[in-house]
């Protein structure tokens, strides 16, 4: 490869639009790339194509009426976001949650995390030109989505959480079905390792690509698997424990290489940790009610006390923060959603500079952005 960084000849710069219609931007995203030859000099992300005013909607709906909006922010971590809204309001209003519901929320959230990472693996490999893994991971995703549909009624966007628990209980056969799905998944790891990690083209296109140091992560507020692939063991499930997570043993996988390959390895390892959490949770699932007796929110309007509250959870993409400002009424005064993809995409303005345009797709794909949660 000829290094032209020292080239001072009067080559013009060229502005290339990546998007907004592009198969690899994972949503409607426009990246204005300023190129000199094939080297990217600057990246200007243009976002907002999917702005649907969720924060304004939150001010005009009661707390329970906002449940359907939660999954639409990040549709791949829809269940995690749904449960996070319930948890935030429960913290504000001091609503107790029964033990069974706490453990059930962990099981469902971890299944949701696995489906999100599975889709990412397929989409990332597809971006690099490998079409086969996409179908392989979707086969596993189908099994999990079918399982989640039997207990929540939905496959992608969920409205299953309520203030004080979940709206539907897990039936008695659920642990058997869940273990069957986990057993299926267990047989796949070595298959995918042979298919993907042994592939020299994949290694050449992901190792050393899209490097992000810890200092860059800190400057941009990057969280999630991207941060963990830069060597920082920061996971909200351990840093600010919530729900039933403190009861279960799991590791936080990190890698030191800071590149796209490291992010791939971290997500695979995270899926295995999620399986570990689900197995422990299924063993520890207690009997009992799934929703606090007399729980209000849907039938009777909830009026949390006034104040400013921050609730932080680990979504599949990173730290998801909900800021609710309540003035004591039935509707929030202000609800702000600190979404992980927002900071992760903003960091691209720094990371993509001085890289080759051929690696732009791999870099963007490796950070796993979901545009609707950026645009809200």
């Amino acid at each position, binding site marked *: 490869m000829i290094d032209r960084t020292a080239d001072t000849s009067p080559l013009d710069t060229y502005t290339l639009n990546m998007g907004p219609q592009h198969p690899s931007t994972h949503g409607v995203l426009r990246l204005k790339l300023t190129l000199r030859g094939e080297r990217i000099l600057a990246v200007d992300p243009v976002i907002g194509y999917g*702005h649907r005013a969720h924060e*304004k909607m939150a001010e005009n709906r009661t707390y329970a009426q906002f449940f359907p909006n939660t999954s639409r922010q990040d549709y791949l971590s829809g269940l995690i976001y749904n449960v996070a809204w319930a948890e935030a309001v429960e913290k504000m209003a001091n609503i107790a949650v029964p033990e069974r519901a706490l453990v059930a929320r962990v099981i469902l959230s971890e299944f949701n995390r696995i489906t999100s990472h599975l889709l990412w693996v397929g989409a990332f490999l597809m971006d690099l030109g490998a079409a086969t893994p996409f179908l392989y991971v979707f086969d596993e995703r189908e099994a999990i989505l079918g399982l989640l549909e039997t207990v929540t009624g939905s496959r992608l966007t969920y409205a299953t959480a309520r203030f004080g628990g979940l709206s539907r209980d897990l039936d008695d056969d659920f642990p058997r079905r869940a273990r069957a799905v986990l057993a299926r998944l267990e047989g796949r790891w070595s298959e995918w390792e042979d298919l993907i990690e042994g592939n020299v083209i994949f290694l050449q296109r992901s190792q050393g690509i899209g490097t992000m140091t810890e200092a860059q992560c800190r400057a941009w507020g990057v969280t999630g698997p991207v941060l963990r692939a830069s060597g920082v063991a920061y996971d909200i499930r351990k840093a600010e424990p919530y729900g039933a997570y403190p009861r279960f043993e799991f590791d936080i996988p990190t890698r030191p290489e800071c590149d796209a390959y490291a992010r791939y390895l971290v997500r695979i390892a995270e899926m295995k940790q999620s399986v570990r959490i689900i197995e422990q949770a299924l063993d520890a699932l207690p009997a009992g009610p799934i929703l606090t007796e007399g729980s209000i929110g849907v039938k009777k309007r909830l009026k949390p006390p006034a*104040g400013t*509250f921050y609730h932080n959870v680990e979504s599949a993409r990173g730290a998801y923060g909900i800021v609710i400002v309540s003035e004591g009424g039935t509707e929030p005064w*202000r609800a702000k959603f600190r979404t992980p993809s*927002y900071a992760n995409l903003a960091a691209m303005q720094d990371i993509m500079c001085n890289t080759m345009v051929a690696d732009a797709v791999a870099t963007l794909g490796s950070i796993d952005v979901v545009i609707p949660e950026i645009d809200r």
Partner: protein
Amino acid sequence: MSPAELVARLEAAGAVVPAPFEHAVGGMQEWRWVGPAHLVAAAQAARDGGYFLESMTCIDRLAAHQSFELLYTFNRYAPASRVAVRALVRQTDAVPSLSGVFPIAAWNEREAWEFFGVTFSGHPNLTWLLLPEDTTFQPLLKSFTAPPPSIYDDSMNPAPPAPEPAAKHE
């Protein structure tokens, strides 16, 4: 630097002001009200203490205080602890930009500008981020309650021409 140490540093620098109103807070280890002129120094102290800018929220308090509240939360990796810095800024005042301290603040401030109309001095590119480039209103203000005009709204379009009479079949 622990949250208590960071807060002590802010207080020592004279950045902290008394709370303008009583408001309960949850989910934060420490929170202080800071004068807007001291925001950059507070952010630098947080950065030096190993914190990152986690979020920035603008809250419309025009009805009660004729001001916006800016809520910045800083967090760190280990041990995680959230420190919130809150500033009350009058509607017409410009706020010093934090984009020189934390680059992510450039996007947070653009969002506050386009949704509330808060101006930030020293911002490299204060323009629309999520909204269309020719938006003339600030949607998250409490005073904004009417839907914006739309090409799909008949009142904006000229009256359609009278329909042609049906052609007679021979």
